[in-house]
Protein backbone atom coordinates (compact mmCIF):
# COMPACT_ATOMS: atom_id res chain seq x y z
CA UNK A 1 0.00 0.00 0.00
CA UNK A 2 2.69 2.45 1.07
CA UNK A 3 4.88 1.42 -1.83
CA UNK A 4 2.07 1.83 -4.34
CA UNK A 5 1.27 5.30 -2.99
CA UNK A 6 4.96 6.17 -3.10
CA UNK A 7 5.19 5.07 -6.71
CA UNK A 8 2.15 7.08 -7.77
CA UNK A 9 3.26 10.18 -5.88
CA UNK A 10 6.82 10.02 -7.22
CA UNK A 11 5.55 9.67 -10.76
CA UNK A 12 3.27 12.67 -10.15
CA UNK A 13 6.12 14.73 -8.67
CA UNK A 14 8.47 14.06 -11.56
CA UNK A 15 5.86 14.35 -14.30
CA UNK A 16 4.48 17.66 -13.06
CA UNK A 17 8.01 18.92 -12.46
CA UNK A 18 8.69 18.22 -16.10
CA UNK A 19 5.43 19.82 -17.26
CA UNK A 20 6.44 23.08 -15.56
CA UNK A 21 8.78 23.83 -18.43
CA UNK A 22 6.50 22.49 -21.13
CA UNK A 23 3.25 24.43 -20.68
CA UNK A 24 2.62 27.79 -22.30
CA UNK A 25 0.40 29.28 -19.61
CA UNK A 26 2.35 30.80 -16.71
CA UNK A 27 -0.48 30.10 -14.31
CA UNK A 28 -0.45 26.46 -15.31
CA UNK A 29 3.33 26.34 -14.94
CA UNK A 30 3.20 27.72 -11.38
CA UNK A 31 0.48 25.39 -10.28
CA UNK A 32 2.11 22.46 -12.01
CA UNK A 33 5.10 23.16 -9.78
CA UNK A 34 2.73 23.29 -6.84
CA UNK A 35 1.47 19.82 -7.74
CA UNK A 36 5.05 18.60 -7.71
CA UNK A 37 5.55 20.11 -4.25
CA UNK A 38 2.34 18.57 -2.96
CA UNK A 39 3.41 15.16 -4.21
CA UNK A 40 6.78 15.52 -2.47
CA UNK A 41 5.03 16.68 0.70
CA UNK A 42 2.82 13.63 0.69
CA UNK A 43 5.84 11.38 0.13
CA UNK A 44 7.36 13.02 3.22
CA UNK A 45 4.25 12.00 5.17
CA UNK A 46 4.78 8.45 3.94
CA UNK A 47 8.34 8.75 5.24
CA UNK A 48 7.00 9.35 8.76
CA UNK A 49 7.54 13.12 8.64
CA UNK A 50 3.92 14.27 8.90
CA UNK A 51 4.80 17.78 9.91
CA UNK A 52 7.38 18.58 7.27
CA UNK A 53 5.21 16.96 4.62
CA UNK A 54 1.97 18.80 5.30
CA UNK A 55 3.75 22.05 6.09
CA UNK A 56 5.44 21.84 2.68
CA UNK A 57 2.00 21.73 1.14
CA UNK A 58 0.74 24.86 2.85
CA UNK A 59 3.96 26.82 2.49
CA UNK A 60 4.25 25.99 -1.16
CA UNK A 61 0.58 26.68 -1.84
CA UNK A 62 1.02 30.31 -0.86
CA UNK A 63 4.46 30.60 -2.42
CA UNK A 64 3.24 29.26 -5.73
CA UNK A 65 0.23 31.55 -5.53
CA UNK A 66 2.60 34.50 -5.25
CA UNK A 67 4.79 32.95 -7.93
CA UNK A 68 1.79 32.84 -10.26
CA UNK A 69 1.02 36.51 -9.57
CA UNK A 70 4.53 37.54 -10.50
CA UNK A 71 4.77 35.20 -13.46
CA UNK A 72 1.63 36.72 -14.94
CA UNK A 73 2.84 40.18 -14.11
CA UNK A 74 6.19 40.03 -15.82
CA UNK A 75 5.96 37.48 -18.61
CA UNK A 76 4.83 38.38 -22.07
CA UNK A 77 1.89 36.35 -23.25
CA UNK A 78 1.27 35.06 -19.71
CA UNK A 79 -1.62 32.80 -20.64
CA UNK A 80 0.18 31.23 -23.58
CA UNK A 81 -2.47 32.31 -26.09
CA UNK A 82 0.28 32.31 -28.69
CA UNK A 83 2.43 29.20 -28.49
CA UNK A 84 5.91 30.23 -27.54
CA UNK A 85 9.36 29.02 -26.80
CA UNK A 86 11.15 30.73 -23.96
CA UNK A 87 14.06 28.35 -24.15
CA UNK A 88 17.68 29.13 -24.94
CA UNK A 89 20.75 26.86 -24.92
CA UNK A 90 18.33 23.97 -24.89
CA UNK A 91 20.87 21.26 -25.74
CA UNK A 92 23.37 22.40 -23.17
CA UNK A 93 20.71 22.59 -20.48
CA UNK A 94 19.29 19.19 -21.32
CA UNK A 95 22.71 17.57 -21.27
CA UNK A 96 23.65 19.24 -18.00
CA UNK A 97 20.36 18.24 -16.40
CA UNK A 98 20.71 14.67 -17.65
CA UNK A 99 24.29 14.49 -16.44
CA UNK A 100 23.35 15.80 -13.03
CA UNK A 101 20.63 13.18 -12.77
CA UNK A 102 22.94 10.37 -13.92
CA UNK A 103 25.70 11.51 -11.59
CA UNK A 104 23.42 11.71 -8.57
CA UNK A 105 21.90 8.31 -9.32
CA UNK A 106 25.36 6.80 -9.69
CA UNK A 107 26.42 8.37 -6.42
CA UNK A 108 23.33 6.98 -4.70
CA UNK A 109 23.80 3.50 -6.11
CA UNK A 110 27.53 3.30 -5.53
CA UNK A 111 27.79 4.75 -2.07
CA UNK A 112 27.10 2.75 1.03
CA UNK A 113 24.14 4.47 2.64
CA UNK A 114 23.86 4.06 6.39
CA UNK A 115 20.67 2.36 7.47
CA UNK A 116 19.23 3.76 10.66
CA UNK A 117 15.49 4.22 10.17
CA UNK A 118 13.21 6.37 12.30
CA UNK A 119 12.05 4.40 15.31
CA UNK A 120 8.29 3.88 15.04
CA UNK A 121 7.62 5.46 18.44
CA UNK A 122 9.43 8.71 17.52
CA UNK A 123 7.43 11.91 17.88
CA UNK A 124 8.73 13.88 14.94
CA UNK A 125 7.03 17.20 15.72
CA UNK A 126 7.85 17.16 19.42
CA UNK A 127 11.50 16.39 18.70
CA UNK A 128 11.60 19.22 16.24
CA UNK A 129 10.10 21.62 18.77
CA UNK A 130 12.60 20.62 21.44
CA UNK A 131 15.40 21.07 18.98
CA UNK A 132 14.13 24.52 18.01
CA UNK A 133 13.81 25.76 21.54
CA UNK A 134 16.87 23.97 22.83
CA UNK A 135 20.11 23.32 20.94
CA UNK A 136 19.11 25.12 17.75
CA UNK A 137 17.68 28.18 19.41
CA UNK A 138 20.20 30.39 17.68
CA UNK A 139 19.24 29.08 14.26
CA UNK A 140 15.64 29.86 15.09
CA UNK A 141 16.31 33.43 16.14
CA UNK A 142 18.74 33.97 13.28
CA UNK A 143 16.01 32.87 10.93
CA UNK A 144 13.85 35.60 12.43
CA UNK A 145 16.45 38.25 11.75
CA UNK A 146 17.05 36.90 8.24
CA UNK A 147 13.36 37.03 7.47
CA UNK A 148 13.19 40.59 8.78
CA UNK A 149 16.09 41.53 6.55
CA UNK A 150 14.30 39.87 3.63
CA UNK A 151 11.13 41.80 4.33
CA UNK A 152 12.91 45.12 4.48
CA UNK A 153 15.02 44.33 1.43
CA UNK A 154 12.01 43.24 -0.59
CA UNK A 155 10.05 46.32 0.37
CA UNK A 156 12.94 48.65 -0.42
CA UNK A 157 13.60 47.02 -3.78
CA UNK A 158 10.03 46.78 -4.93
CA UNK A 159 8.59 50.04 -3.62
CA UNK A 160 8.33 52.91 -6.00
CA UNK A 161 9.48 55.57 -3.64
CA UNK A 162 13.21 55.19 -3.26
CA UNK A 163 14.99 56.78 -0.38
CA UNK A 164 15.60 60.00 -2.28
CA UNK A 165 12.59 60.25 -4.51
CA UNK A 166 10.87 57.95 -6.93
CA UNK A 167 13.01 55.05 -8.00
CA UNK A 168 12.09 55.24 -11.67
CA UNK A 169 13.08 58.91 -11.68
CA UNK A 170 16.56 58.08 -10.51
CA UNK A 171 16.21 58.47 -6.74
CA UNK A 172 19.24 60.73 -6.66
CA UNK A 173 20.70 61.39 -3.22
CA UNK A 174 21.25 65.02 -2.19
CA UNK A 175 24.70 66.53 -2.53
CA UNK A 176 27.20 66.40 0.27
CA UNK A 177 27.52 70.16 0.08
CA UNK A 178 24.43 72.32 -0.45
CA UNK A 179 23.78 72.48 -4.17
CA UNK A 180 26.74 70.20 -4.90
CA UNK A 181 26.85 67.12 -7.08
CA UNK A 182 24.77 64.17 -5.84
CA UNK A 183 26.55 61.83 -3.49
CA UNK A 184 27.16 58.28 -4.56
CA UNK A 185 27.14 56.72 -8.00
CA UNK A 186 24.87 58.35 -10.53
CA UNK A 187 22.22 56.05 -11.95
CA UNK A 188 22.61 55.45 -15.67
CA UNK A 189 20.19 57.22 -17.97
CA UNK A 190 17.97 55.59 -20.52
CA UNK A 191 15.32 53.42 -18.89
CA UNK A 192 12.18 52.61 -20.75
CA UNK A 193 13.17 50.42 -23.69
CA UNK A 194 9.65 49.94 -24.69
CA UNK A 195 9.38 47.68 -27.62
CA UNK A 196 12.69 45.95 -27.81
CA UNK A 197 11.43 42.62 -26.56
CA UNK A 198 8.21 42.27 -28.47
CA UNK A 199 9.58 40.89 -31.64
CA UNK A 200 10.38 37.30 -30.73
Amino acid at each position, binding site marked *: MTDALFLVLSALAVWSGWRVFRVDSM*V*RASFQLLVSFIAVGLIAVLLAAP*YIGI*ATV*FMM*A*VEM*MVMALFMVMFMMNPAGLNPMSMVHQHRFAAITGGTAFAGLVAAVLLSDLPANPVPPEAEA*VRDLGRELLGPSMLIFETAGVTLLATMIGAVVLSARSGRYGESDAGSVPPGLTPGGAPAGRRPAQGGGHHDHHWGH
Partner: protein
Amino acid sequence: MIAATLYLLLALPPLVWAAAVFDRIGTGRGALLAGPLRNGAALLLRPVAPTEAPDRLNRLLAPGWYLALALVGLSVVPLAPGLVASDLSTGLVLWGACEALTVVVVFLHGWSPNAPFPLLGAYRYVAIALPAMLLSMFVLIGAALPAQSLSVGAVVEAQREVWNLVRQPLGLPLFMALGLALTLRGPFDYAGGAELAGGTSAEESGPALAAWRLARAAMLVAFSAMAATAFLGGYLGPVLPGPLWLLLKTLAVMAATVAAGRFFARMPPARMLTLLWVVLLPLSFANLALVGIEVLP
Protein backbone atom coordinates in the same frame (compact mmCIF):
# COMPACT_ATOMS: atom_id res chain seq x y z
CA MET B 1 -11.67 5.42 9.75
CA ILE B 2 -13.82 4.18 6.90
CA ALA B 3 -16.87 4.37 9.13
CA ALA B 4 -16.07 7.99 9.98
CA THR B 5 -15.69 8.81 6.28
CA LEU B 6 -19.05 7.26 5.51
CA TYR B 7 -20.72 9.22 8.30
CA LEU B 8 -19.20 12.41 6.91
CA LEU B 9 -20.34 11.71 3.39
CA LEU B 10 -23.83 10.94 4.68
CA ALA B 11 -23.99 14.06 6.83
CA LEU B 12 -22.63 16.42 4.21
CA PRO B 13 -25.62 16.66 1.80
CA PRO B 14 -28.16 17.63 4.50
CA LEU B 15 -25.67 20.08 5.98
CA VAL B 16 -25.03 21.62 2.59
CA TRP B 17 -28.75 21.98 2.16
CA ALA B 18 -28.95 23.56 5.62
CA ALA B 19 -26.27 26.04 4.59
CA ALA B 20 -28.34 26.99 1.55
CA VAL B 21 -31.39 27.41 3.75
CA PHE B 22 -29.47 29.68 6.15
CA ASP B 23 -28.41 31.77 3.18
CA ARG B 24 -32.05 32.16 2.22
CA ILE B 25 -33.39 33.19 5.60
CA GLY B 26 -34.11 36.88 5.73
CA THR B 27 -34.04 37.41 2.00
CA GLY B 28 -37.82 37.57 2.09
CA ARG B 29 -38.42 35.28 -0.86
CA GLY B 30 -40.20 32.41 0.87
CA ALA B 31 -39.88 28.70 0.03
CA LEU B 32 -37.15 28.42 2.65
CA LEU B 33 -36.78 24.68 2.62
CA ALA B 34 -37.53 23.74 -0.98
CA GLY B 35 -36.24 26.89 -2.66
CA PRO B 36 -32.55 25.95 -2.73
CA LEU B 37 -33.32 22.48 -4.07
CA ARG B 38 -35.57 23.80 -6.82
CA ASN B 39 -33.13 26.48 -7.88
CA GLY B 40 -30.31 23.96 -7.85
CA ALA B 41 -32.28 21.56 -10.03
CA ALA B 42 -33.09 24.37 -12.46
CA LEU B 43 -29.41 25.25 -12.69
CA LEU B 44 -28.48 21.65 -13.45
CA LEU B 45 -30.81 21.67 -16.45
CA ARG B 46 -29.17 24.74 -18.00
CA PRO B 47 -26.11 24.52 -20.24
CA VAL B 48 -22.60 25.58 -19.22
CA ALA B 49 -21.67 28.78 -21.05
CA PRO B 50 -18.33 28.57 -22.84
CA THR B 51 -16.12 31.66 -23.06
CA GLU B 52 -13.59 32.82 -25.62
CA ALA B 53 -10.38 30.79 -25.32
CA PRO B 54 -10.81 29.70 -21.69
CA ASP B 55 -8.46 27.47 -19.73
CA ARG B 56 -10.91 24.59 -20.16
CA LEU B 57 -9.35 22.05 -17.86
CA ASN B 58 -8.94 24.38 -14.91
CA ARG B 59 -12.40 25.82 -15.42
CA LEU B 60 -13.86 22.34 -15.27
CA LEU B 61 -11.78 21.28 -12.27
CA ALA B 62 -11.97 24.38 -10.05
CA PRO B 63 -15.34 23.51 -8.41
CA GLY B 64 -14.11 19.97 -7.88
CA TRP B 65 -10.94 21.14 -6.14
CA TYR B 66 -12.94 23.50 -3.96
CA LEU B 67 -15.26 20.66 -2.93
CA ALA B 68 -12.27 18.39 -2.39
CA LEU B 69 -10.65 20.91 -0.04
CA ALA B 70 -13.87 21.19 1.92
CA LEU B 71 -14.03 17.40 2.23
CA VAL B 72 -10.40 17.03 3.26
CA GLY B 73 -10.77 19.85 5.76
CA LEU B 74 -13.85 18.14 7.15
CA SER B 75 -12.07 14.80 7.34
CA VAL B 76 -9.70 15.92 10.12
CA VAL B 77 -12.61 16.71 12.43
CA PRO B 78 -13.21 13.94 14.98
CA LEU B 79 -16.87 12.92 15.26
CA ALA B 80 -16.41 11.12 18.56
CA PRO B 81 -13.35 10.01 20.55
CA GLY B 82 -11.22 8.08 18.06
CA LEU B 83 -13.76 8.38 15.27
CA VAL B 84 -12.04 10.50 12.64
CA ALA B 85 -11.74 10.08 8.87
CA SER B 86 -8.10 11.04 8.47
CA ASP B 87 -6.30 10.48 11.72
CA LEU B 88 -3.25 12.60 11.05
CA SER B 89 -1.04 13.63 13.94
CA THR B 90 -0.78 17.03 12.28
CA GLY B 91 -4.44 17.54 11.47
CA LEU B 92 -4.33 21.25 12.26
CA VAL B 93 -1.58 21.73 9.69
CA LEU B 94 -3.60 19.80 7.13
CA TRP B 95 -6.51 22.15 7.76
CA GLY B 96 -4.11 25.07 7.25
CA ALA B 97 -2.99 23.52 3.97
CA CYS B 98 -6.64 23.32 2.87
CA GLU B 99 -7.04 27.03 3.63
CA ALA B 100 -3.96 27.89 1.60
CA LEU B 101 -5.04 25.74 -1.34
CA THR B 102 -8.48 27.36 -1.29
CA VAL B 103 -6.84 30.64 -2.26
CA VAL B 104 -5.23 28.88 -5.21
CA VAL B 105 -8.49 27.28 -6.26
CA VAL B 106 -10.51 30.48 -6.10
CA PHE B 107 -7.81 32.20 -8.11
CA LEU B 108 -7.96 29.46 -10.73
CA HIS B 109 -11.72 29.73 -10.86
CA GLY B 110 -11.46 33.43 -11.65
CA TRP B 111 -8.51 33.08 -13.97
CA SER B 112 -9.78 30.28 -16.17
CA PRO B 113 -12.69 31.93 -18.05
CA ASN B 114 -10.45 34.64 -19.58
CA ALA B 115 -12.93 37.41 -18.80
CA PRO B 116 -12.53 40.74 -16.99
CA PHE B 117 -14.82 40.47 -13.96
CA PRO B 118 -13.74 36.97 -12.90
CA LEU B 119 -10.15 38.08 -13.22
CA LEU B 120 -10.73 41.19 -11.12
CA GLY B 121 -12.42 39.06 -8.48
CA ALA B 122 -9.64 36.50 -8.45
CA TYR B 123 -6.88 39.04 -7.94
CA ARG B 124 -8.81 40.99 -5.34
CA TYR B 125 -9.48 37.78 -3.46
CA VAL B 126 -5.85 36.73 -3.34
CA ALA B 127 -4.86 40.06 -1.81
CA ILE B 128 -7.28 39.63 1.07
CA ALA B 129 -7.33 35.88 1.56
CA LEU B 130 -3.57 35.49 1.99
CA PRO B 131 -3.29 37.66 5.11
CA ALA B 132 -6.67 36.39 6.37
CA MET B 133 -5.17 32.91 6.33
CA LEU B 134 -2.32 34.09 8.50
CA LEU B 135 -4.85 35.14 11.13
CA SER B 136 -6.44 31.74 11.28
CA MET B 137 -3.13 29.99 11.68
CA PHE B 138 -2.22 32.06 14.72
CA VAL B 139 -5.63 31.43 16.20
CA LEU B 140 -5.41 27.68 15.59
CA ILE B 141 -1.94 27.58 17.12
CA GLY B 142 -3.54 29.20 20.15
CA ALA B 143 -5.95 26.28 20.19
CA ALA B 144 -3.07 23.80 19.93
CA LEU B 145 -1.14 25.24 22.89
CA PRO B 146 -3.18 23.69 25.69
CA ALA B 147 -3.38 20.41 23.77
CA GLN B 148 0.40 20.22 23.29
CA SER B 149 -0.32 18.55 19.99
CA LEU B 150 -1.26 19.36 16.42
CA SER B 151 -3.79 16.57 16.27
CA VAL B 152 -7.36 17.81 16.18
CA GLY B 153 -8.45 14.99 18.47
CA ALA B 154 -6.03 16.18 21.15
CA VAL B 155 -7.32 19.74 20.75
CA VAL B 156 -10.81 18.52 21.59
CA GLU B 157 -9.66 16.43 24.53
CA ALA B 158 -7.81 19.44 25.96
CA GLN B 159 -11.14 21.23 26.18
CA ARG B 160 -12.71 18.84 28.67
CA GLU B 161 -12.15 21.32 31.48
CA VAL B 162 -12.89 24.52 29.67
CA TRP B 163 -13.64 25.36 26.06
CA ASN B 164 -11.10 27.27 24.03
CA LEU B 165 -13.77 29.89 23.49
CA VAL B 166 -13.32 30.84 27.15
CA ARG B 167 -9.54 30.54 27.09
CA GLN B 168 -9.20 32.78 24.07
CA PRO B 169 -12.32 34.87 23.58
CA LEU B 170 -10.80 36.57 20.53
CA GLY B 171 -10.11 33.26 18.84
CA LEU B 172 -13.52 32.42 17.41
CA PRO B 173 -14.28 35.89 16.01
CA LEU B 174 -10.88 36.04 14.32
CA PHE B 175 -11.30 32.52 12.99
CA MET B 176 -14.70 33.52 11.66
CA ALA B 177 -13.07 36.22 9.57
CA LEU B 178 -11.20 33.44 7.84
CA GLY B 179 -14.41 31.44 7.53
CA LEU B 180 -16.04 34.33 5.71
CA ALA B 181 -13.05 34.53 3.38
CA LEU B 182 -12.98 30.76 2.74
CA THR B 183 -16.68 30.60 1.98
CA LEU B 184 -16.68 33.79 -0.11
CA ARG B 185 -19.28 35.71 1.78
CA GLY B 186 -20.07 39.05 3.30
CA PRO B 187 -17.26 41.45 4.18
CA PHE B 188 -14.63 39.02 2.89
CA ASP B 189 -16.36 38.13 -0.36
CA TYR B 190 -13.66 39.73 -2.46
CA ALA B 191 -13.97 37.04 -5.12
CA GLY B 192 -17.52 38.06 -5.92
CA GLY B 193 -19.89 40.78 -4.90
CA ALA B 194 -22.33 43.04 -6.66
CA GLU B 195 -19.70 45.54 -7.80
CA LEU B 196 -18.12 42.79 -9.89
CA ALA B 197 -21.36 41.27 -11.18
CA GLY B 198 -20.57 38.06 -9.33
CA GLY B 199 -16.79 38.17 -9.70
CA THR B 200 -15.18 34.81 -10.25
CA SER B 201 -18.53 33.22 -11.10
CA ALA B 202 -19.74 36.05 -13.33
CA GLU B 203 -19.18 33.91 -16.44
CA GLU B 204 -20.36 30.62 -14.98
CA SER B 205 -23.76 29.21 -15.68
CA GLY B 206 -25.76 26.06 -15.28
CA PRO B 207 -24.16 23.05 -13.62
CA ALA B 208 -20.76 24.76 -13.32
CA LEU B 209 -22.34 27.47 -11.20
CA ALA B 210 -24.30 24.89 -9.24
CA ALA B 211 -21.13 22.90 -8.54
CA TRP B 212 -19.29 26.01 -7.39
CA ARG B 213 -22.13 27.04 -5.06
CA LEU B 214 -22.37 23.53 -3.71
CA ALA B 215 -18.66 23.49 -2.97
CA ARG B 216 -18.96 26.87 -1.30
CA ALA B 217 -21.72 25.56 0.95
CA ALA B 218 -19.65 22.45 1.70
CA MET B 219 -16.77 24.71 2.66
CA LEU B 220 -19.07 26.54 5.09
CA VAL B 221 -19.89 23.19 6.65
CA ALA B 222 -16.23 22.21 6.88
CA PHE B 223 -15.25 25.55 8.36
CA SER B 224 -18.06 25.46 10.90
CA ALA B 225 -17.21 21.93 11.97
CA MET B 226 -13.59 22.96 12.42
CA ALA B 227 -14.54 26.09 14.37
CA ALA B 228 -16.88 24.07 16.57
CA THR B 229 -14.11 21.57 17.19
CA ALA B 230 -11.32 24.01 17.87
CA PHE B 231 -13.24 26.48 20.02
CA LEU B 232 -16.51 24.95 21.20
CA GLY B 233 -15.28 21.59 22.38
CA GLY B 234 -16.30 19.57 19.31
CA TYR B 235 -18.09 16.41 20.33
CA LEU B 236 -17.84 17.16 24.06
CA GLY B 237 -21.09 17.75 25.89
CA PRO B 238 -23.41 16.26 28.50
CA VAL B 239 -26.32 13.83 27.97
CA LEU B 240 -26.48 13.78 24.17
CA PRO B 241 -24.09 11.58 22.18
CA GLY B 242 -20.91 13.24 20.91
CA PRO B 243 -21.65 13.37 17.17
CA LEU B 244 -24.97 15.05 17.88
CA TRP B 245 -23.23 17.73 19.92
CA LEU B 246 -20.82 18.28 17.08
CA LEU B 247 -23.73 18.58 14.66
CA LEU B 248 -25.53 21.12 16.83
CA LYS B 249 -22.42 23.22 17.35
CA THR B 250 -21.64 23.08 13.64
CA LEU B 251 -25.11 24.33 12.80
CA ALA B 252 -24.74 27.13 15.35
CA VAL B 253 -21.43 28.28 13.88
CA MET B 254 -22.90 28.06 10.38
CA ALA B 255 -25.77 30.31 11.36
CA ALA B 256 -23.43 32.74 13.08
CA THR B 257 -21.13 32.88 10.07
CA VAL B 258 -23.99 33.54 7.67
CA ALA B 259 -25.32 36.25 9.98
CA ALA B 260 -21.91 37.88 10.30
CA GLY B 261 -21.61 37.84 6.52
CA ARG B 262 -24.85 39.77 6.24
CA PHE B 263 -24.09 42.20 9.03
CA PHE B 264 -20.73 43.67 8.07
CA ALA B 265 -20.18 45.76 4.97
CA ARG B 266 -17.43 45.03 2.50
CA MET B 267 -14.65 47.61 2.39
CA PRO B 268 -12.63 48.67 -0.60
CA PRO B 269 -9.83 46.09 -0.78
CA ALA B 270 -6.92 48.38 0.07
CA ARG B 271 -8.64 49.42 3.28
CA MET B 272 -9.35 45.83 4.22
CA LEU B 273 -5.73 44.90 3.54
CA THR B 274 -4.49 47.54 5.97
CA LEU B 275 -7.08 46.51 8.53
CA LEU B 276 -5.98 42.89 8.32
CA TRP B 277 -2.28 43.57 8.75
CA VAL B 278 -2.41 46.45 11.15
CA VAL B 279 -5.39 45.65 13.36
CA LEU B 280 -6.48 42.03 13.08
CA LEU B 281 -3.03 40.45 12.88
CA PRO B 282 -1.75 42.20 16.05
CA LEU B 283 -5.02 41.16 17.69
CA SER B 284 -4.23 37.56 16.86
CA PHE B 285 -0.74 38.01 18.37
CA ALA B 286 -2.37 39.36 21.50
CA ASN B 287 -4.76 36.44 21.51
CA LEU B 288 -1.87 34.00 21.27
CA ALA B 289 0.03 35.73 24.06
CA LEU B 290 -3.09 35.59 26.22
CA VAL B 291 -3.45 31.83 25.77
CA GLY B 292 0.28 31.43 26.27
CA ILE B 293 0.19 33.10 29.65
CA GLU B 294 -2.98 31.29 30.68
CA VAL B 295 -1.79 27.79 29.99
CA LEU B 296 1.63 28.15 31.61
CA PRO B 297 1.68 26.16 34.84
